[in-house]
């Protein structure tokens, strides 16, 4: 089965592991991921004031492309991309004025050839037809736990993993609308489906410092430390994330964290798709574990994962 998939720019360069593990895992669930032709960066941040709405043009262009290619659903993994695509899509569905303005904007962009100034393609307004889903949501609602379970090739023996939602996946609830921000289940259910045990800890939905990582590295270090330590105190052997920025803050910053907070001893960080792919039998070499600052290899070695006979 073919499914439209938006990797986003980070996955093409810095977070290749997230991209590859996603593809490999989905293959084993009979899903072939296709990228919308000529996709561009979604803008990373959803514009929060009414005057910046041209910022919607980028994500809407992607969504329109998906629609034009006959896609009904678009999945993403990166929480930032997901938030932008989903919110932009909803804004267009709900607000006729935005719909008009963005389409007018995109119409110029597509119909007029910049050189010949001739009209090129016929343009059909985009009205929010495509459904934007996060891969976790897709796995929960479209693939389903029974199917995932039936395809498992390795037994992770209840490996204690702390799910980290961060800030973009569930909030604002009215727009993201797929789980409760303060009592979420979707990540836990995923981990249990692949054979891990989900660690319950108080910081799973606290922010890791996000983009302040650059302008205010100390604050991000501290924020990430709080998350990691809370997970570790509840017995987690690893933290799992959906977003390259969360990954960066929690993984690359660990050296700085250890320097600043002596009580912290390090905790591997994994993309959720790496766990999924591993459980589905993908070879370790393909998982991109080399990108990690905190070695996660040992985790896969040390945890006795036995092959499930099929």
């Amino acid at each position, binding site marked *: 089965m073919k499914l439209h998939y938006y990797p986003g720019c980070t996955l093409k360069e810095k977070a290749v592991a997230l991209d590859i593990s996603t593809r490999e895992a989905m293959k084993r669930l009979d899903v072939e991921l296709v990228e919308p032709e000529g996709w561009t960066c979604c803008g990373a941040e959803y514009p929060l004031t009414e005057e910046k709405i041209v910022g919607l043009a980028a994500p809407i262009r992607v969504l329109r492309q998906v629609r034009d290619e006959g896609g009904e659903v678009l999945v993403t993994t990166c929480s930032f991309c997901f938030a932008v695509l989903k919110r932009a899509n909803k804004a267009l569905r709900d607000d006729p004025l935005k719909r008009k303005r963005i389409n007018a904007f995109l119409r110029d962009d597509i119909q007029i050839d910049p050189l010949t100034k001739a009209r090129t393609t016929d343009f059909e307004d985009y009205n929010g037809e495509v459904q934007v889903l996060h891969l976790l949501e897709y796995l929960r609602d479209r693939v389903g736990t029974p199917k995932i379970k039936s395809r498992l090739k390795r037994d992770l023996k209840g490996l204690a993993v702390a799910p980290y939602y961060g800030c973009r996946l569930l909030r604002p609830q009215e727009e993201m609308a797929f789980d*409760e921000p303060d*009592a979420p289940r979707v990540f836990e259910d995923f981990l249990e489906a692949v054979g891990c045990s989900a660690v*319950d800890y*108080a*910081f799973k939905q606290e922010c890791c410092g996000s983009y302040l990582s650059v302008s205010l590295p100390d604050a991000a270090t501290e924020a990430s430390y709080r998350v990691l330590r*809370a997970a570790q*105190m509840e017995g987690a052997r690893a933290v799992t994330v959906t977003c390259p920025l969360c990954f960066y803050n929690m993984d690359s910053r660990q050296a700085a964290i250890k320097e600043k907070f002596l009580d912290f001893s390090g905790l591997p960080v994994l993309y959720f798709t790496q766990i999924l792919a591993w459980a589905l039998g993908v070879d370790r070499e393909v998982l991109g574990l080399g990108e990690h600052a905190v070695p996660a290899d040992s985790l896969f070695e040390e945890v006795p994962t036995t092959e499930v006979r099929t």
Partner: protein
Amino acid sequence: MTVKTKKKEDKRIGLFVCHCGVNIAGVVDVKKVAEALKDTPGVSMSTDYVYMCSDPGQQMIIDTIKEKHLDGIIVAACSPTLHEKTFQEAARLAGLNPYQIEIANIREQNSWVHSDKDKATKKAVKIVKSHVAKAIRNENLEPIKVDVKKRALVIGGGVSGLQAALDIADHGYEVILVEKNPSIGGKMIQLSETFPTLDCSQCILTPKMVEVSRHPRIKLLTYHEVDSVSGFIGNFKVRIKKKPRFVDEKLCNLCGECEKVCPQIVPDEFNMGLSFRKAIYMPFPQAIPGTYTLDEDHCLGLSPVRCGKCKDVCEPRAIDFDMKETIIEEEVGAIVVATGYDLYTMQALGEFGGEKYEDVVNGLEFERILSASGPTGGVVRRPSDGKVPKSVVFVQCCGSRDTEKHLPYCSKICCMYTAKHAMLYRHRVPDGQATVFYIDVRTGGKAFDEFYQRTVEEDKVLYIRGKVSKVFKEGDKLIVWGVDTLTGKKVEIEADMVVLAMAMVKTDGVQDLLKKLKISTDIHGFVAEAHPKLRPVESLNAGFFLAGCAHGPKDIPEAVSQASAAAAKVGDLFAQKELSHEPTVVPVNDELCSGCGICVTMCPYGARTLDPSKGVVDVNEILCEGCGACAAACPCGAAQQRNQTDDQIFSMLRAMLRE
């Protein structure tokens, strides 16, 4: 009810124009008005007089009605709110049906607000003419009369229900009190001490409970529920379901042997799940009626094959596994709804961890922890490990005043009970720290603010103005993240226990009952009052009264006042020999009614129902208050208001507007 009336062509109408000294006559040429209408069809005489409402004025009206055999009169004078009753009475004395009297307001709405004599006179003529048009079409009416069954049903055995039942019974009427739980007492019996005086709750409530159980005119039905209600004010038929208790109340001698042998352990509702009871149990020692109850949902199986241990040890043979649900029928004239409240679930506020952490409790749980009869014998111990907490954080407005995600209203009592909790905790644990997070402290009520001030000043409770965002656990401590908006500091507190002042919400499941009663609620599911200021203890639906927290958040003093007020209103009703009701209602013309049901949805009182067998609407005239909303909505003209029919309105408009 209509009485035989003359056809409009045959009617003889008399017109009496009042001078009101110079009040009217100074601006309106009253003689001209009387003169102008003399020849209007239907008018058989017209006259003017200086003071119509004076004794000679009234006498003149009476005499003229008799002499001239008038079928209706128009008094053109002041506002009908002033003297309509006066002239109706005069008409009655003259043998005229009082619904044939029309008052044309030419004073307040004319002579007093205009100075141009000519315009005012012309306007007066139009006003009077319109009443002539109406009067010739008025019907003779009689007030609608019904009997009253002088027995009341009170639903709910909390402090409100108990008070209402006692008051009504003391007025001399019979009362049936229905309580769904095995014992009466409601939430109040679970409280430790009560603000603002700190009386022990059980000490003040148990005597009332005993009084109810012994009152010769109160029939107490615990473990019962209302199954259905039909009829109308003064004449309700109620079916009440008796849930099987499996223990004969009269035989059980409270020996407790059954409880000892019962193998089934169940969380104890009375102690808010902080302790356990057996499947056969007494809810609490002072429960009324004093009997054990077998909880069918938790018993191993009500049969000697499955268990039957309790039955074996019961010497008086009180236990009967074969008891069945039965239905009782009663007739009553009034119903008091006193079904109380519940607390909002802690689950709804995931960020506070109420469902996750044992030591995050709600207000009622803390009441049990404070109570001398509670699971810890009155020593403050936290649920997880029984340790005495040295730091307790109280969070106010949990779920209340949250328009966005929870409940928009203020729960009204939590500021007071939080102050009480903090104070009592400090009394019990003198070296403990109590911290309260609040947004506003609302302590309106007699001696309430003094109580709160005492908590702060004498018991040194730290009040922090800000809302808590998150509670989480680290080791065996709870960490509370809040803010002090007064200093602009984000604060973090380590606590051993957190008490959440959860919002008061409608009783779980009460909507089913209210649907059976067909009474209106507000958007939060509390019973709606007829008027927020002037009829606060009556439902909009005639014959229903409300008391206590069923109507909305309130404390005990208010709940009890409301219960007594509701009882007084029931007394009012029962003091009448029969009920009489304005006949200016909107009946239905079966021949015109298409059965579309539009009017049914318009009626705020449920007076109209669709009769599926006849395919037309059925109107209960007792319930109709005569607002006319249905009449305006009926597309077939089948709903006509008595003495304000569409025909009358059109003819009045013609009289007013046609030159």
